[in-house]
C-alpha cells in the first residue's frame, strides 16, 4: 500500500488489518505517554485546500503520536486561476523534503490526481476530496461499529445493517462508508429526500429509503446521520430546514422509537436540532465522541502502514 486514496484501494483483508492495527493504536492512546517512535525523522504535511479543524487536528495528533514531524499547509482557494497551481504547490513542498501528503481538497479526485502525477513522489492520504471520498472517516466508523456492536477487536461486519441518512449526493462520508461497510459484509441503506439520494446512488448501496420512518421500522443496527448544509436550500434540493428536520431529522420521538441497541452515529460537526436532536446526540447509544477518539487511532494506523513499513516489504 503506497497511498490511501479510496476505500477501493483496500482489499477486505487489508481493511480488517488496518482496523486491527487501529485497535492496537487505541491502546497507545490510553497510555500516560501516548507516543511511539515509529515515524521518527519522517515529515508529514497536512495539505488542506479546504477548511477543516477536526480532521486536520486528528491527523496532526496521529502523526505526532508516531513521532513524525508535522507541518500544516493551508492553501484555501488555491487554483490555477487564482495563482499557484496544484503542481507548483506540491513541487514546492516536496522540494523541502516530505514523506507524506495528507490532502484535503474541495475538488473530487484531487488526491488521486496528485498520487498519479509524475510531479509528485510522496505517499498521499486522502483526507476528503470534494464530494468523493473520505476513507479514514470510513475506517473510523467501521472501527466504532465493530467495537460497539461486537465488542471485538477483530473480524468483519457480516450481518450488520446500517442506515445512512441525509445529503448522500454531496457526502464523501456516505460514499466511503458504503464502500467499506459493504466490503466488510454489512448491508447498507441510504435514506433522504430523492433530490439528495438520486436513484443512481443504488450503485453504492443495497437499498434506498425516501421515508425515514419506514426505514426506521426496519430496525437497523446503526443509524448514521449526516450534516445538512444551509446551501442545499438555496439550490432547491430541499424546501427549508424545518421541513427537512421533520422528515429526515433524528428527532426525540424518532430516537425514542429506536431499539436501545441501535447505535446513533454522526461524523460531525452536528447541527443540533436540525438533523439530530440533542437527546439522540448525547444518549448512551450515541458514538459521536468515540468516533472522534477512534479517528486518531485509525489515522495513526494508516500513517504507520504507509510510512513505517515502507521499504520493509
Amino acid at each position: 500500500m503506497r497511498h490511501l486514496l479510496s476505500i477501493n484501494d483496500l482489499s477486505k483483508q487489508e481493511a480488517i488489518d488496518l482496523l486491527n492495527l487501529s485497535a492496537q493504536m487505541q491502546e497507545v492512546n490510553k497510555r500516560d505517554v501516548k507516543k511511539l517512535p515509529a515515524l521518527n525523522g519522517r515529515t508529514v504535511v497536512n495539505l488542506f485546500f479546504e477548511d477543516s479543524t477536526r480532521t486536520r487536528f486528528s491527523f496532526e495528533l496521529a502523526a505526532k503520536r508516531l513521532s513524525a514531524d508535522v507541518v500544516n499547509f493551508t492553501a484555501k482557494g488555491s487554483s490555477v486561476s487564482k495563482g499557484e497551481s496544484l503542481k507548483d504547490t506540491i513541487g514546492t513542498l516536496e522540494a523541502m523534503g516530505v514523506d507524506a501528503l495528507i490532502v484535503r481538497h474541495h475538488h473530487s479526485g484531487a488526491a488521486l490526481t496528485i498520487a498519479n502525477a509524475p510531479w509528485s513522489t510522496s505517499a498521499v492520504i486522502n483526507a476528503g476530496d470534494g464530494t468523493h471520498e473520505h476513507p479514514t472517516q470510513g475506517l473510523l466508523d467501521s472501527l466504532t461499529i465493530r467495537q460497539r456492536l461486537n465488542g471485538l477487536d477483530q473480524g468483519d461486519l457480516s450481518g450488520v445493517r446500517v442506515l445512512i441518512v441525509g445529503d448522500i449526493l454531496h457526502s464523501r462520508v456516505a460514499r466511503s462508508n458504503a464502500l467499506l461497510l459493504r466490503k466488510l459484509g454489512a448491508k447498507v441503506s441510504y435514506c433522504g429526500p430523492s433530490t439528495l439520494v438520486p436513484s443512481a446512488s443504488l450503485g453504492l448501496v443495497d437499498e434506498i429509503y425516501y421515508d425515514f420512518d419506514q426505514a426506521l421500522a426496519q430496525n437497523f443496527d446503526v443509524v448514521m446521520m449526516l450534516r445538512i448544509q444551509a446551501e442545499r436550500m438555496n439550490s432547491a434540493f430541499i424546501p427549508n430546514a424545518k421541513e427537512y428536520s421533520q422528515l429526515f431529522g433524528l428527532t426525540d420521538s424518532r430516537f425514542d422509537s429506536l431499539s436501545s441497541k441501535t447505535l446513533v452515529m454522526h461524523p460531525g460537526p452536528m447541527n443540533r436540532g436540525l438533523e439530530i436532536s440533542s437527546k439522540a446526540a448525547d444518549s448512551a447509544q450515541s458514538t459521536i465522541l468515540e468516533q472522534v477518539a477512534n479517528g486518531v487511532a485509525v489515522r495513526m494506523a494508516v500513517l504507520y502502514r504507509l510510512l513505517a513499513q515502507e521499504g520493509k516489504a
Partner: protein
Amino acid sequence: MSHYLIKNAQLADGTVVDIEINDQMIVQVGSNLSSTGELIDASGLIALSGLVDLHTHLREPGFEGSETILTGSKAAAKGGFTSVHAMANTAPVADNAAVVEQVFALGKKAGYVQVQPIGAVTVNLEGSQLSDMGKMNKSSATVTVFSDDGKCVSDSLVMRRALEYVKSFEGVIAQHAQDPALTVNAQMNEGELSMKLGLTGWPQVAEQAIIARDVLLAEEVDSRLHICHVSTAGSVDIIRWAKARGIKVTAEVTPHHLLLTEDLASEYDPLYKVNPPLRTQKDVEALRLAVADGTIDIIATDHAPHPEDSKDCEWGEAAFGMLGLETAAAIAQTTLIETGLIDWKRFQEVLSSNPARIGKLSDQGQELTPGSYANIVLIDPKAKQVIDREGESKSNNNPYAGMELNGAVKHTIYKGTLTVRDGKVLELGENN
C-alpha cells in the same frame, strides 16, 4: 501554377478514376488520362472532396499559446480538411466585423485551408444583446454561421430574435445546447458513475430541453437552426422528430462522442473533460446510428486546443475540450465505416458536402468533377495508425494518444495546392 494528375483514385461511389488538376480547378476526370502534370499515384486510395469542419477553435486572436490560425490550419490540413469554421469565442470575441475580417485574412495568409469565421450571436457571448450579425455578413468574411459556442443562447427571447434576424441573409444559428441553470458546476455525465466519483452531474436533459425549445422556435419563425455537438440518445430523438415535422434543423456530432464514453473519467484525468461531456455506450451507439440514418447531418470536430497547464491539474480546475482535427477522419472510418454503418458516399456527405452546404461555402464540398475547385483528400483506408500525442496542433490535449485507428490521410489538396503529401504537412511559405 500547380498541375497534377492523380492516378487510379477510388471515388466515394466506388469508381476508380484519374483526376487532373490545373491551377485551382479539377479539369478532367476519367480513365487512363495522361497529362504533363506531376503524377500522384492514388492506387488503393479513396479520393473525396476536401473535408469541411463546421466547428473548430483556432484560438486566435487571444489564446495564441494554445493554437494559432496557422498551426490550426496545418492540423486541419493534416486531418484532410480544406476548410474550417473558426469559432467566435476568441479574445476579443468575434462579435464584430473587424475581428471576423482579421481571422479571415489570417486564414488566407496561412493558406492551408479556407478559414471561415463564425460570428458570435450576442455581444461578448453574454447572451443578452445581439452582435453585429448583419455587418459580419456584409464584411469580407461573409459570415453566415453564428454561434455563442462554449455558451448557450439560453434566453428564449434572444434565441428567437437571433433566429429571425439572420433569416434575411440566410444565416444559421449554431446552438451550444446547454441549459446553464441545470449545469451549474457540472463536470461529467450524470449517472451512477458521477455519483460514484462525486463529480457534479451534467444531466442529459440540460441538452435536450434546449434542443426541444429551439426546434420549436425555429419552426415558429421558419428559420435555420444548427445544433452543435449532439451528445445524447434523447437529443437524437428530438431532432428526428423535428426533421419529420419539416423543421429546418441540422445537427452535428463530434468524433469523440462517436468513440469515447464517460468511463474514461474514472481516474479524474482531465484529458477526458469536455463540453458536452462524454456520455454512455448507449448514447454512442444512438449517435452512430443517427449519422447513418441522416438524423445527424455532419461530423464536426469541436477541436479545442488547451495548454498543458490547464489539463495537468485537478479535474475540477481543468479546461473543457480535446483536440480533434487530425484524427477526425480516422475516427469516422473506425466507428462508422469499419462497423458497416455507412459507406464512403455518406462519409463524404457528413464530412464535406453537408457541412459546406450548412456553412454556405460554395467552393467546398463539391463533387470531384471537372469545373469543381480542386479540394481533395486522399485517404488510405487500409492503413492502421497508432496516434501520436503530438501533432501539428500547438497543443497536446489529445485523448487518442496511443490508440490504434483505421485509415490515414495520405494527401490533401486545397484549391490545387498540395498541403499534405504522404501524411506530412508541407511548408507553403509566406503569402502562399
